[in-house]
């Protein structure tokens, strides 16, 4: 068994107390929700925070409120199982329910939270390794080293954004509420990310993600497709999230195609969306948009299956995601 490094565990009873503790402890502390990402990483010594602030005791973090018409508020501590089974989400934000339900295994989904999923550490198969292995290979710049082992000449880290819900929330146009002792702000999920494998989030270290805010679902449809090796357990090696609204005659009025697990952040395929806007969905327009969107997928050899393979099937998955609306009779 790999062992956790020693740490002190603080258990705030409400958000204000948590924010206070976090500002007091500063850089020494990390937040932990379900711990399904953080604890394994700590066992492998990717993180060795002396202090952990547990968010599980904050009652408001488990709230879900709102409606499909006016939008919804989802507490950061809501588990993935709850999301996957929530009737409103299943009916009106199906991509989010699908994504949450496709994370890992039932056991992990019972514990893992939406907040933790959004703020999942980026992944790379040179990095998600034990200390023994990383030591013997000489470390990389994401932790303890100076070079990138995937792209040795690269000045930056290309670790992959691998959260299933991230591309979906971007495609839905969701935002998050960030709270600190300094106050609070609401940020579009898309702006939470930056293109940097080492520092993938714009969230300040003293900020706590308190909730996810979904916009109204009226007029929108959504879908999420995930590529992975097995029916369970695996992180995505490609995620395709699409939200779409169409007018009466079937022309696309708005569409957001977002790719997960192809870069250090969820990649928005804007050009592909532009190709579709004002068009009806047909096999031809879908093919054109898929080819365009797939160009945004630039996988490296740092995840399961080869980079060429992942590149090759990106077009297929995007096409299938878009075709889903054809099959589901996208004109409502």
């Amino acid at each position: 068994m790999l062992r956790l490094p020693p740490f002190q565990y603080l258990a705030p009873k409400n958000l204000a107390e948590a924010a206070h503790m976090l500002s007091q402890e500063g850089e020494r502390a990390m937040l932990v929700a379900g711990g399904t990402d953080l604890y394994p990483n700590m066992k492998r010594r990717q993180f060795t925070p002396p202090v952990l602030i547990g968010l599980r005791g904050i009652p408001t973090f488990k709230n879900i409120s709102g409606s499909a018409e006016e939008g919804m508020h989802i507490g950061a501590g809501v588990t993935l199982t709850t999301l996957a089974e929530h009737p409103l989400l299943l009916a009106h934000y199906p991509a989010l329910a699908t994504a949450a339900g496709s994370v890992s295994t039932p056991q992990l989904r019972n514990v893992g939270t939406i907040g933790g999923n959004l703020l999942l550490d980026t992944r790379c198969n040179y990095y998600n390794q034990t200390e023994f292995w990383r030591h013997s290979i000489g470390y990389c710049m994401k932790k303890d080293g100076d070079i990138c082992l995937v792209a040795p000449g690269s000045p930056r880290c290309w670790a992959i954004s691998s959260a299933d819900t991230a591309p979906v929330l971007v495609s839905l146009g969701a935002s998050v509420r960030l709270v600190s002792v300094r106050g609070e702000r609401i940020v579009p999920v898309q702006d939470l990310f930056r293109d940097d494998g080492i520092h993938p989030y714009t969230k300040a270290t003293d900020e706590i993600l308190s909730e996810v805010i979904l916009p109204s679902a009226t007029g929108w449809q959504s879908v999420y497709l995930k590529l992975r090796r097995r029916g369970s357990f695996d992180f995505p090696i490609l995620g395709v999230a699409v939200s779409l609204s169409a007018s009466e005659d079937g022309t696309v009025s708005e569409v957001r195609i977002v790719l997960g697990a192809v870069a250090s952040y969820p990649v928005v395929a804007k050009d592909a969306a532009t190709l579709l806007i004002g068009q009806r969905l047909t096999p031809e327009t879908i093919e054109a948009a898929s080819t365009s969107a797939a160009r945004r997928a630039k996988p490296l050899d740092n995840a399961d299956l080869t980079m060429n393979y992942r590149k090759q099937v990106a077009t297929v998955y995007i096409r299938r995601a878009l075709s889903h609306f054809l099959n589901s009779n996208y004109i409502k």
Partner: protein
Amino acid sequence: MDNEYYEPGGGNIADAAHQHDRQVGRTRVVGQKKRRVDARPLVTGAPVYAAEFEQPNMLHARILHSPHAHATILHIDTSKALALAGVRAVLTHEDLPRVAHSTAGQPYPESSPYDAYLLDRRVRYVGDWVAFVAAETPAIAEEALSLITVEYELLPAVFDPMEAMRDGAPQLHEPDITHPNSGQHFGDIYDAAHNIAAHEVITYGDFDSAMSEADIVVEGEYSVPFISHTVLEPHVCVAYLDGYDRLIVVSSTQVPYHTRRQLAAVLQLPISRIRVVKPRVGGGFGSKQEMLLEPVAAALALKTRQPVRIEYSRQEEFTAGRFRHPVILRMRSGVRRDGTLLAISMHSIGNAGAYGTHSFTVTRSTGHKTLCLYRAKAYLFRADAVYTNLPITGAMRGYGAPQGFFALESHIDEIARRLNMDPLEFRRKNHVQKGDWDPMEMVEEEGVWRSKRQFRSCGLPQCLEKGAAAFGWGQPFERGDGKPIRRGHGMATAMQGSGVASFELGGASIKLNEDGSFNVMTGATDIGQGSDTILAQIAAEALGVDMDKIIMHSVDTDSSVFDYGSYASSTTYISGGGVKVAAELVQKQVLDVAGDLLDCAPEDMSIVDSVIYTPRGPSHLRVADIANETLYGKHRQQIMAKGDFWTDDSPAPFFAQFVEVEVDTETGRVRVTKAVNALDLGKAINPALASGQVEGAVAMALGYALSEEVKFDDQGRVRNAGFVDYKVMSTLDMPEMTTILVEDTEYTGPFGAKSAGEVPTNGMAPAVANAIQDALGVRIRSLPITPEKILQALDEL
């Protein structure tokens, strides 16, 4: 229709169906789905495993592993580690005797080269052992590891067996290893200069002449990957000194007796000073047919005179445990146009990793256990196991046969296709039949070659018939239009042994208690497969009592009878055979006393459900009354006996696997949607446990077929040492399964039983490859069949 050329041995089935016939068919306990004897503690999480065995003042051990694939240790400085508070001992190669040995859990003398040392000056793979630490807590032990400084001189390393066999390749082992069995045919390294750990050739008939009669010659090269057992319970053991100053080792092992002997040799202790105890074991699959952590815990316990526990982490299991040999196999066979198989050849090159444990026997089994599935005029099998600077490959469920069957059963499918024959028909025409002799088991006696193994039972025809019917083989099905799905059907057949012919001994001693219960003390090793339950059923049946009268005890080398351990599908057949002998002897002792009391001839009496029967019917005496009579009455004695079983036979279980696959032609993803598994096991002592063995094996083999592979970087370091990256198939990936048990009585086995544990691992991989061929028209000859390989093959169409 049958292949008429096949006649290796001659002669008829030697053993007539004797009294077993009477017993099979009217059993009361055997053949029932009895609850496992250990069910309750296991499902309620009772502390029954070695890792839960607590001792006062117990220390925790950790191992320092080599970060280099090949290096000489110039200097080790342990002073800082020893100075750390809480560290009790640090051992390096300087502190331990340098005893050449094999870690293979095999009978003495092991048929594996003596190329290993507990700790050596040289390390031969990333993960090889460098030093041992014992400390008061696991955390301190781990900190101590980081305080040991080692100066290495790096040596060139080699990872590919083909390269390793070339002249001038880095050489891993010296040829002049001294060991007790030197001079034995397989005791030495076969060719140390070319890194060939073991080598085997088996021939039968005149291969070239048989091939010259062929209308069609089919060839193919296949490869199978480096995979892990992924046992749920890692290797773990606790060692301590008892009140007699003896060394007690509580270990998660498949081979308590072999381990005791090897431990004595390595630590240079008398065997009499060692006692090995096996508690419940959470799976072995061959990875524990090894002495692994026992000498580490024992050496540290002897050094510190405190109890020591050591347990491998999952990471260590994946880097410094044991693995299945990856093999490259070349097949070449000749057939007549009418579908008669004339000659089969297999040439296999296996990667032994850094040490040759099980290399000879596994490599040998790749051909020896497989080619005899078909009748032919001639056979040619050649195999090498080659050292490389990779982790150690050894025994794993199927023991070389899954590798061989992937090649053979893919190859047979290719032959049938070339002939435009239904692969099932081709197999029916050519497969081994009851009464045939094994061409892989030829021995010379007084100048005459004859086979020493006859297939007295063979339910393969029933497996094929029932399996095909349940599956709907040959029936039309929805093939899919390729947009994107295509479906295909595939099948494979397989066989195995039941124990290793001439290399087994097992059984039990049985003792009567005053309440009419019996202690069954067996050396057979229940590693989770349920052998304690099976043996209890056999004992109960043969004694004439119900299961609740049987108290199982396994294994303690001080009190159990000697047993070779749990491997080679031997437990039911060998140890079960011995248990039955013991039970019959004990029953006779009971009836002798009862006969005296009832004035009746013992041979006319029987025991049914603990009641003593005379020819007049049930008597007033029960077994408990006889027990009281012997312990307190006039016939004072302890009723007790032991039974052994050993044989130069190894009856074959047969297996047929049918699968349907669904291939996504755009992504290359393969799903096995339906599987029918038909097993001839002679007799299902416990049908529930037997089906469990089959379904577990099929599930395991699905990973072999589609996804499992230990990957290495160019320095020989494992890239996927954990369950996130090493892809074991999940519940959701399992097909809908139907399991059919066929019982073709094996008259030499207890109640007609053969074996069930390994043979079902052999069929899935070739059946999937064959079904993919059926679906797509492409042939994938290397495992695992990843989506990339499918897309690549489709591209090349």
